């Protein structure tokens, strides 16, 4: 049991123990939890029940884990269509937390947690951080946004649950982040990988040598990032960089995480049951095949998610990890099956840009989204062609228009974007269909 000692789990929260349960025990646990979550959703959630009825299914039809494939999928639009509380399986008196993330129409997607859900969430993030070799005595700076976004509070509760000292800086103010990392002797950072890249570059400008700091681990997530970015980060900062995975609809950060072997992300499958399906047909695929990750929450109370289509493309990795955990792993996520853009950890859809533009002028000008990476930070520029309706011969009027567009986009997208007014017909049009997104982000 060297691996347990190595990751220090004997020293931290007992919730880390399920990582090593024998597989047969894990499967039994998953089946009984699946049966109860399906029963609960069927009893409490109208949409789920009607979809079960359409298929002539009842909770008793789930006799084996494989029977999960009979169940209907849930997708992001279901959350949107039932906004705000339509998928709740718990009464509000049992809900202790509400989070929200951006949706495609400007309406957010709402997720809720009971006290037990928050405990499970905390326990899985504890297991993530323990797997990254962190423990009591570590000083963990959480630079994910705190607020409606699940990143900040999720990482915070987990780090605190682990017994680490948490520095809740939230996002922004790079200079102060760097000062605190240095002055407090921070040993681990939780943030998006691109934000950390930004911190590396800023630290260099400030003359702070990151390799000389106490920082030894980074737990990075909320956006896809490549192996080459990991290598770059590790070389430039001297830390060990871990990929953490999660999504608000399932719980937030903590659905899965790399261990120190860095051979894929362990899914905490005693709480989140993973499947890989063909994104086009929804047919389950065997281990090792690449497809869309589908997750079922096995223990979630407030909003049980049955077969949630994550749109993230990955594979379930065959075989057991050298670390000794029995939990299955997914490969690192490099792309998504839909057009969602993830910018600085925030979900953005091109259609949101359209709705914001429509709101302002009532007509849709031709526009393009240009994504770049400057000093390690994703930048989004929305280039908008000036139409005759928008044009005015007074600079002040154009500047006011510019500000209105800026305000509407910031508001709808929830992130700061650069708005550029460009000449009519100056943006590329390809075969009638507008090319809306130009992604020039590298590394």
């Amino acid at each position, binding site marked *: 049991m060297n691996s347990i000692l190595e990751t220090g789990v004997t020293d931290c929260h007992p919730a880390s123990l399920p990582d090593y349960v024998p597989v047969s025990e894990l499967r039994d646990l998953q089946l009984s939890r699946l049966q109860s979550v399906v029963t609960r959703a069927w009893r409490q959630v109208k949409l789920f029940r009607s979809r079960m009825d359409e298929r002539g299914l009842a909770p008793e039809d789930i006799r084996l884990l494989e029977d999960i494939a009979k169940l209907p999928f849930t997708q992001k639009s279901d959350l949107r269509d039932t906004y705000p509380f339509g998928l709740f399986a718990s009464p509000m008196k049992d809900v202790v937390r509400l989070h929200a993330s951006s949706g495609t129409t400007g309406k957010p997607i709402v997720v809720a947690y009971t006290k037990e859900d928050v405990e499970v969430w905390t326990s899985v993030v504890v297991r993530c951080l323990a797997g990254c070799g962190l423990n009591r005595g570590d000083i963990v700076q959480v630079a994910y946004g705190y607020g409606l976004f699940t990143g900040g509070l999720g990482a915070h509760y987990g780090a605190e649950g682990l017994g680490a000292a948490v520095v809740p800086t939230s996002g922004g103010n790079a200079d102060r982040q760097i000062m605190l990392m240095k002055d407090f002797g921070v040993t681990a950072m939780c943030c998006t990988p691109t934000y950390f890249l930004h911190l590396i570059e800023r630290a260099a400008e400030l003359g702070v040598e990151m390799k000389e700091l106490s920082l030894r681990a980074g737990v990075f997530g909320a956006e896809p990032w490549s192996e080459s970015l990991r290598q770059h980060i590790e070389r430039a900062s001297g830390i060990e960089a871990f990929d953490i995975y999660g999504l608000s609809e399932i719980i937030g950060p903590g659905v899965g995480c790399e261990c120190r072997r860095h051979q894929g992300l362990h899914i905490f499958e005693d709480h989140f049951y993973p499947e890989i399906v063909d994104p086009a047909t929804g047919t389950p695929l065997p281990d090792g095949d690449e497809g869309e990750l589908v997750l079922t929450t096995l223990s979630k109370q407030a909003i049980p998610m049955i077969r949630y289509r994550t749109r993230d493309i990955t594979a379930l990795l065959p075989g057991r990890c050298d670390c000794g955990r029995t939990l299955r792993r997914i490969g690192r996520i490099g792309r998504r099956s839909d057009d969602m853009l993830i910018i600085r950890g925030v979900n953005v859809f091109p259609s949101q840009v359209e709705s914001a533009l429509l709101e302002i002028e009532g007509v849709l000008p031709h526009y393009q989204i240009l994504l770049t990476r400057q000093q390690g930070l994703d930048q989004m520029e929305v280039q908008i062609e000036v139409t005759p309706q928008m044009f005015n*011969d*007074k600079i002040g009027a154009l500047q006011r228009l510019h500000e209105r567009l800026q305000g509407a986009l910031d508001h709808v997208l929830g992130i700061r974007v650069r708005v550029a*007014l460009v000449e*009519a017909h100056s943006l590329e049009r390809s075969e009638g269909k507008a090319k809306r997104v130009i992604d020039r982000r590298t590394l």
Partner: protein
Amino acid sequence: MKIQQISLFVENKPGHIAAPARLLAQEGVDIRALYLADTQQYGILRMIVSDCQKAAGILEAHGFVAKVTEVLAVEVADHPGGLADVVGALEGTGINIEYMYAFPCRRGEEAILIFRFADPDAAIAHMETAGINLLESNELLNL
């Protein structure tokens, strides 16, 4: 009294004035006065041309966003105080100049001031009372 002016949206990038200028040249449109209002990102090219409607048609046909607006042209003596006399006549009237520009006359003794007002009629009334010489469109173009 009112003079037609054509305004064009242009990005603040090298070469962006050349295309409209070339188009107007090809069609024999004479630019009599020109002013470029700019920001870091974009600008507005304002012109008084020999045939405003024709210019607007040409530019729009080539995909430019153009707008024809009405401005006032004032002829003043080209010596110190010429501008002060004109704007002084508007002082205290509450009439705001949205923008203005000026150019010397070819004869060399007068200068022409171009004004854009939110309420040009009120401006005309005040200027005429003050004895200011407002030019008609044909006078301006034939200077």
